């Protein structure tokens, strides 16, 4: 299908998210995406979830298979770290932030979630907040 003209395309914001689990645990990308959708649906409802449209566009976690070691900039170590880039619609960053804060477990593994910052482009997010390739 022919793509939309630029002025009709949706505008996006990119949330840089830091993840942390206890030592020896890991989080697969697919599970994180599923939890994002569940969290958004549970907190924001179907319309809010559709409006925010949380989509994981980049993901890296220590031990997730194929990924290199996640971010180690978190102070104090003791745990496994990862990071993700979550795309949301412009104007929906606060609901998306709230939904992400409600993720406390992924595949029965307790996780810490922290939104490091919001960017307008993937490149800016990578430059400012993320270490993933």
């Amino acid at each position, binding site marked *: 299908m022919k793509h939309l003209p630029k002025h009709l395309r949706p505008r996006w914001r990119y949330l840089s998210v830091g993840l942390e689990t206890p030592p020896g645990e890991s989080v697969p990308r697919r599970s994180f995406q599923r939890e994002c959708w569940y969290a958004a649906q549970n907190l924001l409802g179907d319309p809010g979830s559709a409006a925010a449209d949380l989509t994981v566009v980049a993901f890296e976690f220590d031990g997730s298979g194929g990924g290199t070691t996640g971010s180690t900039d978190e102070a104090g170590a003791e745990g496994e770290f990862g990071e993700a880039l979550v795309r949301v619609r412009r104007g929906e960053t*606060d609901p998306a932030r709230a939904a*992400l804060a*409600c993720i406390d477990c992924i595949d029965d593994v307790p996780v810490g979630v922290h939104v490091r910052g919001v960017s307008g482009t993937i490149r800016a997010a990578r430059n400012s907040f993320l270490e993933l390739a």
Partner: protein
Amino acid sequence: MYEAVTIDSDGASFDLVVDRAATFGYDGVVVRNAESLPESSLDDRPIDAVDATTIRTADPQVASGAVGNARSDHTLVLLEGGSPEMNRFAVETEKIDVLTRPMGRDGDVNHVMAKAAATNGVRLECNLGGILRRTGGRRVRAIQSLRKLYELVEYYDAPYVVSAGASSHLELRAPRDLCAVGEQLGLPGEWVSEGLAEWGRLASRNRHVRSESFIEPGVERGRYETDR
């Protein structure tokens, strides 16, 4: 802004909590069970660590004695509610700083308690932990309780504090994330951040009162005023 945390007795988990809280932009952490940590573990931290104790009992008379004992040893004295009797006792006791979990278990807060809390300066805790970590019907009830507490606190201008009820570094959430969650529930973001900051104001007030220079309100030890 401060977050009130419950810590396992080992110092390592407290180190992690303090590190994460500093990363997330908190000015300090309130340790709800400081008595279970090794002595001096609150000193020399990158952010402020406030020494607090939580009194848990179902009997107001036992609580009354415990409050008197704890008041001189800890900066903050919290009392865990959860029943109408304990909630009533807490809001009518000036020596208690914060009534935690007022809506937990069988607990409830009404207009009489909110007025008493405002009169006696007892902070009511709005705990977002139930929203962050529960699901289904239990989460719905937690949201309903929080909304009721918010409406009473707003109407009677009762003092309040906000926390995420974290018990490990993984359960900590950044202040901005908590404000965003609050806004989704109908609590203004400024209201949530004021509640997080209230812990710090409470701690500094109590530290001042406990310091040697303080004698009673309006009377302090120090140099004479020379310009009279």
